[in-house]
């Protein structure tokens, strides 16, 4: 029997935070939007509390910090979406409920995840098919052709393929690691397909995303996660450098041949030159962060609506505007704690498959947070991806809940199983 009192205490603190946000929204503008925000905070809290109680009954030893951290992020996201536009809030709340269900399913169905290693090639194939689908049947939303129209909602396969990527790489790298090391040890040896195959495969996949789906951000995350996992598995600098060079070559080719990549870079270099056009969005984002100051304008008192696409890619700027530098850093610190917890889970495992999978998921999450926040703050070119758990979007939210579920699975699985 594992006690989960600490988890519930942290969940309660998180609830007080999101409840305050909902109450502030209601007091500022009494109406259904504010009431729903309060309700959403309560529903998310109750959902995680229920999970906590169920796990306690079952006596599972899941990490105690993961659910409070993601409930904080999800709650903050839902409150801000209700503040930005209640229509987004309702849908996001529905997705959060589905996400919690998905998290529960993940912890139930995939708890013995070691067997997944046997299906790694199936995952790779499924992932590639899922990525190809939008190219033929997809629709373009927000500049990226990475969506499938499922009638009731839009589905973004690439969000789930991220998970398949980690499943595949964890299995593949652990199995082929020894071979790789050996091959790397020989001097003057011609690199074989076994060694360079996956690198080229990943590179092509990333380019596929970049060119056909116009999804620069996802391409960056995929390739970054791939390199991170290869690094952890092999620490072969030559491989990493080759990968980076390939990536840069791909990026340079894309810069020269793909119009939207060139635009993104031009905006990043000097948004002020096109301040009323393509540079408008990032400038508004910077103005929003600047306007927030240290303490922020207060929830509902800022003007985040001046930022186009504020509910998805740019939600971090809205959070900075209304909760200030402290609020923005607060969100980053919560993500850092989540990343810390993820690596901690990886490091307590003995079997390399678990280590690599936990670290891979964590690296994926950390990279995504870094890339999107660096993008909205003009540290890097803006690449148009979601802020995990916070941005509006069902595919992204559910995928991240599954990711969190996998971290929980890994955190409790008995070593050596």
């Amino acid at each position, binding site marked *: 029997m594992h006690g989960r009192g600490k988890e519930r205490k942290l969940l309660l603190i998180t609830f007080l935070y999101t409840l305050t946000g909902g109450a502030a929204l209601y007091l500022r503008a009494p109406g259904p939007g504010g009431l729903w925000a309060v309700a959403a905070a309560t529903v998310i809290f109750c959902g995680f509390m229920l999970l906590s109680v169920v796990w306690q009954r079952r006596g599972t030893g899941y990490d105690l910090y993961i659910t409070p951290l993601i409930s904080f992020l999800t709650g903050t996201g839902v409150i801000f979406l209700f503040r930005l536009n209640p229509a987004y809030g309702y849908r996001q709340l529905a997705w959060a409920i589905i996400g919690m269900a998905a998290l529960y399913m993940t912890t139930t169905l995939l708890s013995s995840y070691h067997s997944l290693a046997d299906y790694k090639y199936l995952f790779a194939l499924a992932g590639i098919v899922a990525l190809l689908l939008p190219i033929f049947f997809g629709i373009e939303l927000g500049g990226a052709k990475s969506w499938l129209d499922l009638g009731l909602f839009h589905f973004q396969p690439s969000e789930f393929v991220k998970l398949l990527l980690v499943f595949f790489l964890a299995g593949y790298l652990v199995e082929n690691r020894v071979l790789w090391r050996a091959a790397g040890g020989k001097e003057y040896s011609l690199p074989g397909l076994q060694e360079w195959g996956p690198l080229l495969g990943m590179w092509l996949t990333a380019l596929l995303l970049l060119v056909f789906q116009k999804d620069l951000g996802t391409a960056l995350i995929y390739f970054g996660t791939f390199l991170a996992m290869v690094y952890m598995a092999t620490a072969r600098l030559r491989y990493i450098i080759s990968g980076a060079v390939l990536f840069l070559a791909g990026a340079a080719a894309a810069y020269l041949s793909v119009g939207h990549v060139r635009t993104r870079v031009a905006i990043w270099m000097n948004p002020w030159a096109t301040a*009323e056009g393509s540079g408008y969005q990032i400038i508004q984002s910077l103005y929003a962060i600047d306007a927030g100051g240290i303490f922020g304008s207060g929830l509902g008192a800022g003007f985040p609506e001046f930022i186009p696409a504020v509910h998805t890619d740019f939600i971090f700027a809205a959070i900075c505007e209304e909760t200030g530098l402290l609020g923005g850093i607060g969100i980053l610190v919560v993500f850092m704690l989540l990343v810390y917890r993820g690596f901690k889970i990886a490091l307590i495992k003995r079997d390399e498959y678990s280590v690599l999978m936990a670290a891979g998921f964590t690296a994926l999450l950390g990279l995504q947070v870094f890339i999107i926040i*660096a993008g909205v703050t003009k540290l890097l070119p803006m690449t148009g991806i979601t802020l995990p758990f916070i941005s509006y979007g069902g595919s992204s939210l559910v995928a991240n809940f599954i990711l969190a579920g996998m971290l929980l699975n890994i955190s409790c699985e008995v070593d050596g199983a």
Partner: protein
Amino acid sequence: MRNNVRRLAYILLVGLAAVCVYLALIPVYINHITKSGAALADPRIAAGENRIQRGAILDRHGAVLARSVPAENGYQREYPLGGAAAHIVGYYSNKYGAAGLEKSMARVLLGLEGGSKIINLRNRILGRPGVGNDITLTVDAGLQQYAAKLLAGKKGAVVVLDPATGEVLALASSPAFDPLQPAKYIDDAEAPLLNRALQGAYPPGSIFKIITAAAVLADLPGMAGDTIKCTGKLTVNGFTLHDNAVHGPVDFGEAFTKSCNVAFGRYGLALGAGEFLKQVTAFGIGKSIDFELPVYAGNITPAGEMDGPTLASSAIGQGEVLVTPLHAALLAGAVANDGVIMQPYLVAGYRGRGGSSSRRHPEEWRRAMTPAVAAALREQMINVVRQGTGRAAALPGVTVAGKTGSAENPHGKSHAWFVGFAPAEEPRVAVAVLLENAGSGGSAAAPLAREIIRKALQ
């Protein structure tokens, strides 16, 4: 593998921590960009101001010159007087910025300054839009509208003030503009956006003789008794100063009343650059005036460059001398107020919605001359209107004192000036009227001044 995982964890955590640091630097970057002027205007600033109910601008009796009325997305500004008070009130546009009191008093109007801090904090917490302070002016809306009406179709300015307090009762500039659409006037060749009363730099012509006369009365009392023979021109070092007529032999009084350039040129030379400039400075010419709106300080040739011809020209208000209509009104005001120029002001005070208020008190700006000199000049100025060049300013039943000016300038006909005050015995108003290229002050400006004085004394 474990070490690699650890290393990657450090890299990612350090990267995210670096983003935190970078986040704190964004305001520095934005500050740098906005200072360099490359920036796009932040729509938040205007939107924030639109949420605040900007205070109203009221005349001395409470008549509305500007107010905010609820509109879609906040508030909208209304200017009931339209162009008549446009140069005082100014404008306030998200796109073209602000001018006039809308600009200079923006912080008070927005409630950022002078309001109740507690009320502002309460509004902030409850998310209620802020409320600005109402400003009360010294201006009389009726007089202001009347002055604007008299100026309509002409180019020029009128300033009316209370010489005993410095309160500006009217300040009109023509051509005027519609404060709701300043953009329409930006490229207008007539420069309607220019506040001629405060920013117009005009040669004063003979109204400047008030200053020269004050210097003569103070420093050369003997000369004031002498008679000077006016031949219609005065030659100084080969430079010839032309008079408006051949006045023959004139004493000091006749020279002032008839505005004899020969006599005043010679007074200037007799005073010398030092004494003359001392008197000019005593009247505040070239000294910046602390006013709610930007004022041109005026110009006078400095002592080092003041040669004979320039001195003689300056003594009759030509040469390089430049003044604004506001300053011209202050010249008359100095004589009316026993030699003391009161600090001119437009804003009498403001009132916050929370009951806070502030009221301004009159202050002395500078002493231009002794009461005795002022008293002597007053008699001379009464004579100008009674029997001299300013007869057109005379009003039945009221003693008007004044001085005309017809300032030569490079742009065509003379600028017509009249400065004066009334009632001369117990002055309540001092006025300055300037009409660009309208000819002689006595025939063009004096009648207009008379109507303004009549209205002001009602």
